[in-house]
């Protein structure tokens, strides 16, 4: 970087040279690059065989950021991972990866990681110790505790969890598999209705009609990537069909914003609605087991209308539509099914699926999904802790002190345990209370495996040398066992890696593979072993147990509003709060980053006389929190909602002291579940105000036609967006005057002439993109992929408040309708990035030719030429150019986070304009490879980071000059349009209009 002191003594030309000398990525990225400095070339002692300097090496592994168990490909350069992408062979995620999974990289290189084993001093501080010492301490404490040992672990199942189970059993201790949003209500309902404790898989791709009762299946519930893939197939106008999605919940989450119809039902009334639909179905169609009609008889649409607030006629219509579409699918789960009546909700939905004939069709049992123990197990453990029955507790892959509501009293019970041990990678709230920290390896540093479902054995392998002095959790257990001896002596594998391999040898036997070496290498290369999933298990209605029931939720507290809280789409249950990408990339629904907020409906906001940013105090008998208002059209006016995930008291510098934790408001659970819906809340205006760190611009399209839509019937006829408007009597074809046409044609001729000289001669590729808005769900996976691929700095809350976020690719979210009370509201999502205009307004205004058009159709941005006039950004109609106001390159990646930087992409310096490059480093990489092999680039050989990540495959990238390419065909699609086409800037991105179902069909 230009050093101020030297820069001032340089002449202008030299100054510009140095200013432009932006640092490259890599370990040396931030070390400066003055030309006088001696640079060292340090060779390897022994060259690793699978690394070629300058080229990426890919390893297959498994994501552990949630319990879904998606397969990943890890891109490494010179021995360090720089990007995570989905593994296309993996049956769960098929090559896609969500934001939270991609951000695992920032967990690996997190500055807040525990750097080695530590023990607590009597004065409460932590002191670094050696591993031998740490192992000896734990072994001694285990010896003292005898069977008074408890282990809290995550929900993931695999060799490690089996080992942990055996190990705990050998001690005579107690193991609780804990997950923040456990699916116990769903399992309880399945036990009741089908007599099966299993969780089914949902085949959304097959469904012709989907009703979700508050299940956020696109983002935070179930297997979101698999479900998003299915939803895109069902709802994305493939084969000219769009399956209707109805979303019944008091608040719309990301799934709700993708729904064709939102039913803003009263909180906790899902079961009444589902039962009424089932009742209509049974009474009108019959043919169901006797007794079912009787059980359902009481749940009439009239009753449901009263409970839910949805008119009875609408419920009847929904039920008929649901029955007519074969197969259909009803879903319940997530936080909507986490309250006292949660089992009833899930049971009602099970009955609805059963009477509609969806079991075995779209609801498939037999996948053996791993399940956490319910909340009751953890509550029982807390009681034992309180009673002094636990001598040693070991916490692995869980942070219950943070994720349990304060009213459960878990933290106090935990404090009473004599000796507390954590294997957490970070000093989270639970680890901060512990006496001994045994930080385990990150998933990318260790050997391990997961069994996310029947027939899927997913492997993890170390892809780099450990960043810190950590050990794999398996090795910690084995070493402690050898030290402690006794009942643990039989855990005598030389290492966890050896233990894992012996288990895989047994697995090879079970699967009938005789050649273990080939089996093992094949599994490592493909990321695991994927067998055909078992046929859908047959379940039948256990009528005697299948009591249809609905109880109106009993809420504690007083106040005008019912309080809802929900997992944050980026931070989930709070585990993402130490990763700057997840903090800065805005929540897809509200577009707010970095802080907490409270959602208030437009009507309620008028009643309270509050606006965006006004700080409200929310109080319940359990506690009080303060947060700024976000007026959200997608929430009922008698409900306020807050996202979980912030308000950490530990968990590293990024998370600590940021936002508030709404769990403090919740009532103590009375039953099996953490009651996320449990209380009313008193709301008080504080009279203070803060600006929301929102990345949204204007929230409505104002007739600009940015996110276009087309009615289903018109799309099926193959009409264009304009023709559809004309047909609907909403517009007319604009006839250009002769003078206008002449101007445009004259321009085209000039352009043609200009492309005949020098670099522009001949047939160059024209890189282009197509984005199908019928499939885009607004999930942010592409945005995170862009941050990872292109070394985009996170600028921090202060800069976001000034509108200086650097999101090369952002998702615009526009509201439709909802302006009058009672008018339905919906959302449109548009991924907005540099449009690489053929007639780009940014180019002619650049005084130094830093913004210019490349022969292959890109809108180039030459960082070393840029002097930062910002004229280009001012002249860009799409607002996709971003300026480096500060030395973000020096502060966005505190060590060792800088190790994640992609060495193929220049890290931009202060004073430089930047924007989407269509991943030019990937284009050049593919061109280099093709040139070596004397062949043209093949369509689909490479793609941009955003297109690679998109779970619904809505982004397609390629050479539009190649008529056989996917993008060339999509560019001709009748639904295609260009944003702000009237400006005649000729964007290279074709958007395909969203297909809308008729309002009442």
């Amino acid at each position, binding site marked *: 970087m230009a050093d101020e002191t030297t820069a001032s003594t340089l002449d202008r030309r030299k100054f510009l040279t140095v200013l432009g000398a932006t640092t490259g990525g890599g370990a040396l990225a931030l070390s400066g690059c003055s030309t006088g400095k001696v640079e060292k070339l340090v060779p390897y002692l*022994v060259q690793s065989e*699978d690394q070629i*300097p300058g080229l990426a090496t*890919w*390893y297959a592994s498994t994501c552990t950021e949630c319990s879904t168990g998606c397969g990943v490909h890890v891109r490494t350069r010179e021995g360090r991972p720089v990007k995570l992408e989905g593994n296309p062979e993996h049956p769960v995620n098929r090559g896609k990866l969500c934001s939270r999974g991609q951000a695992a990289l920032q967990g690996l290189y997190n500055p807040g990681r525990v750097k080695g084993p530590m023990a607590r001093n009597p004065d409460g501080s932590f002191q670094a110790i050696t591993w031998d010492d740490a192992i000896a301490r734990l072994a001694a404490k285990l010896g003292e505790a005898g069977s008074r040992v408890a282990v809290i672990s995550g929900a993931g199942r695999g060799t490690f969890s089996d080992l942990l189970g055996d190990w705990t059993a050998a001690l005579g201790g107690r193991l609780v598999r804990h997950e923040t949003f456990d699916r116990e209500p769903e399992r309880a309902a399945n036990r009741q209705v089908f007599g099966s404790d299993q969780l089914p898989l949902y085949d959304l791709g097959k469904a012709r009609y989907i009703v979700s009762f508050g299940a956020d299946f696109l983002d935070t519930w179930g297997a979101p990537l698999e479900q998003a893939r299915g939803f895109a197939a069902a709802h994305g106008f493939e084969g000219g069909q769009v399956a209707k999605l109805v979303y019944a919940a008091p608040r719309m989450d990301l799934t709700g914003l993708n729904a064709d119809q939102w039913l803003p039902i009263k909180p906790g009334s899902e079961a009444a609605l589902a039962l009424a639909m089932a009742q209509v179905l049974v009474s009108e169609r019959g043919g169901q087991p006797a007794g079912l009609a009787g059980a359902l008889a009481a749940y009439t649409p009239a009753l449901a209308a009263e409970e839910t607030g949805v008119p009875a006629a609408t419920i009847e219509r929904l039920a008929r539509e649901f029955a007519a579409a074969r197969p259909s699918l009803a879903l319940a789960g997530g936080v909507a099914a986490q309250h006292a009546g949660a089992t009833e909700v899930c049971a009602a939905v099970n009955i609805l699926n059963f009477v509609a004939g969806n079991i075995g069709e779209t609801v498939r049992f037999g996948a053996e999904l791993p399940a956490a123990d319910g909340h009751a197990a953890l509550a029982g453990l807390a009681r034992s802790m309180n009673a002094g029955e636990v001598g040693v507790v070991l916490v692995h892959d869980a942070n219950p002190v943070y994720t349990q509501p304060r009213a459960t009293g878990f933290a106090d019970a935990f404090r009473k345990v004599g000796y507390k041990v954590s294997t957490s990678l970070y000093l989270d709230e639970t680890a901060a209370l512990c006496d001994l920290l045994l930080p385990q390896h990150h998933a990318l540093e260790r050997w391990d495996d997961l069994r996310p479902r029947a027939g899927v054995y997913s492997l993890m392998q170390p*892809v780099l040398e450990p960043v810190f002095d950590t050990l794999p959790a398996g090795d910690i257990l084995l070493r402690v066992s050898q030290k402690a001896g006794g009942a643990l002596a039989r855990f005598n594998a030389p290492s966890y890696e050896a233990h894992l391999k012996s288990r895989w040898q047994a697995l090879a036997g079970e699967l009938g593979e005789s050649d273990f070496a080939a089996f093992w290498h094949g599994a490592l290369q493909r990321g695991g072993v994927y067998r055909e999933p078992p046929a859908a298990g047959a379940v039948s209605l256990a009528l005697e147990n299948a009591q249809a029931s609905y109880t109106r939720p009993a809420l504690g507290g007083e106040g005008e509003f019912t309080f809802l809280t929900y997992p944050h789409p980026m931070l989930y249950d709070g585990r993402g709060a130490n990763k700057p990408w997840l903090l800065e990339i805005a929540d897809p629904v509200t577009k707010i980053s970095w802080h907490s907020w409270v959602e208030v409906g437009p009507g309620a906001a008028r009643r309270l006389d509050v606006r965006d940013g006004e700080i409200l105090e929310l109080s319940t008998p359990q506690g009080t929190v303060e947060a700024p208002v976000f007026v959200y059209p997608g929430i009922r006016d008698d409900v306020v909602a807050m996202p979980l995930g912030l308000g950490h008291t530990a968990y590293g510098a990024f998370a600590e002291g940021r936002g508030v934790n709404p769990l403090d408001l919740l009532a103590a659970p009375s039953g099996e579940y953490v009651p996320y819906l449990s209380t009313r809340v008193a709301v008080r205006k504080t009279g203070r105000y803060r600006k929301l760190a929102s990345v949204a611009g204007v929230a409505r399209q104002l007739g600009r036609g940015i996110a276009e839509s087309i009615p289903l019937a018109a799309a099926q006829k193959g009409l264009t967006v304009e023709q559809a408007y004309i047909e609907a009597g909403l517009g007319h074809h604009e006839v250009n005057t002769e003078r206008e046409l002449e101007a445009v044609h004259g321009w085209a001729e000039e352009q043609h002439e200009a492309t005949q000289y020098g670099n522009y001669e001949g047939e160059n590729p024209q890189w282009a993109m197509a984005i199908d808005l019928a499939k885009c769900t607004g999930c942010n996976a592409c945005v995170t992929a862009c941050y990872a691929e292109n070394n985009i700095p996170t600028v921090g809350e202060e800069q976001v408040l000034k509108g200086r976020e650097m999101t090369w690719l952002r998702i615009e979210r526009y509201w439709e309708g909802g302006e009058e009370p009672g008018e339905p509201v919906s959302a449109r999502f548009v991924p907005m990035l540099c449009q690489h205009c053929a007639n780009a307004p940014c180019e002619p205004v650049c005084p130094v030719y830093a913004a210019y058009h490349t022969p292959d159709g890109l809108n180039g941005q030459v960082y070393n030429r840029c002097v930062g006039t910002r004229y280009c950004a001012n002249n860009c109609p799409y607002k996709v150019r971003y300026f480096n106001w500060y030395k973000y390159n020096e502060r966005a990646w505190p060590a060792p986070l800088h190790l994640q930087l992609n060495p193929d992409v220049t890290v931009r310096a202060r004073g430089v304009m930047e924007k989407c490059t269509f991943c030019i480093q990937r284009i050049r990489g593919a061109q280099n490879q093709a040139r070596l092999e004397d062949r043209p680039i093949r369509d689909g050989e490479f793609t941009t980071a955003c297109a690679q990540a998109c779970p619904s495959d809505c982004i397609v990238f390629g050479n539009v000059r190649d008529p056989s390419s996917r993008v060339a065909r999509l560019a001709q699609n009748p639904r295609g349009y260009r944003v702000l086409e009237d400006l005649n800037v000729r964007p290279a991105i074709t958007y395909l209009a969203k297909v809308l179902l008729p309002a009442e069909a």
Partner: protein
Amino acid sequence: MRTLAIVLGGAGGLAILLAFGDPGPEAQQTAAVPDSIAAPVISDTGALQGPRQPLFFRHDIHAGQFKIQCQYCHYSVAVSPEPGIPSMQTCMGCHLVIAGSDSASRTEIRKLRQAWTEKKPIEWVRVHFVPRHAHFPHQRHVKAMGPNACATCHGDVARMPQVFKVNNVTNMGFCITCHVERNVSRDCSVCHY
């Protein structure tokens, strides 16, 4: 021609190498040494051009006198943007048995062996570099220019006792002159991104 190679990794893992294929005929290009030269005896190393290296490695002996191909050591130059700096193991491959013919070379080879025993790689002083905002794919240049590729920028290294900069490769003018002469792309974004 893309291959899917399976290689056991240094970290113990298994890599899927999608990114490099058969090096092909271009990998067989040779250093431009028409005839073996006799490397001179050098008594005053202080008078040599170029930065002094921690170990007096003589390209004129290796590439000139013994005609070892550039790619024997700079192994990835034909497949990757990076030419590859030989690992200490590559040096020791020969110098495990070759101890040097005179006292001067024996001294230097002893340094190498000591570094190998102590597992401390020699830290070479970098001579040629392009700024980090410019991308220079070695493999394309070797592919395009064939046997004389290396000397075009690096000069006649085979006759250099100590490597020095013949061409100012840090200066864009040097690149552009060649690209103009050969009528290949001068588009900014070919190198700057």
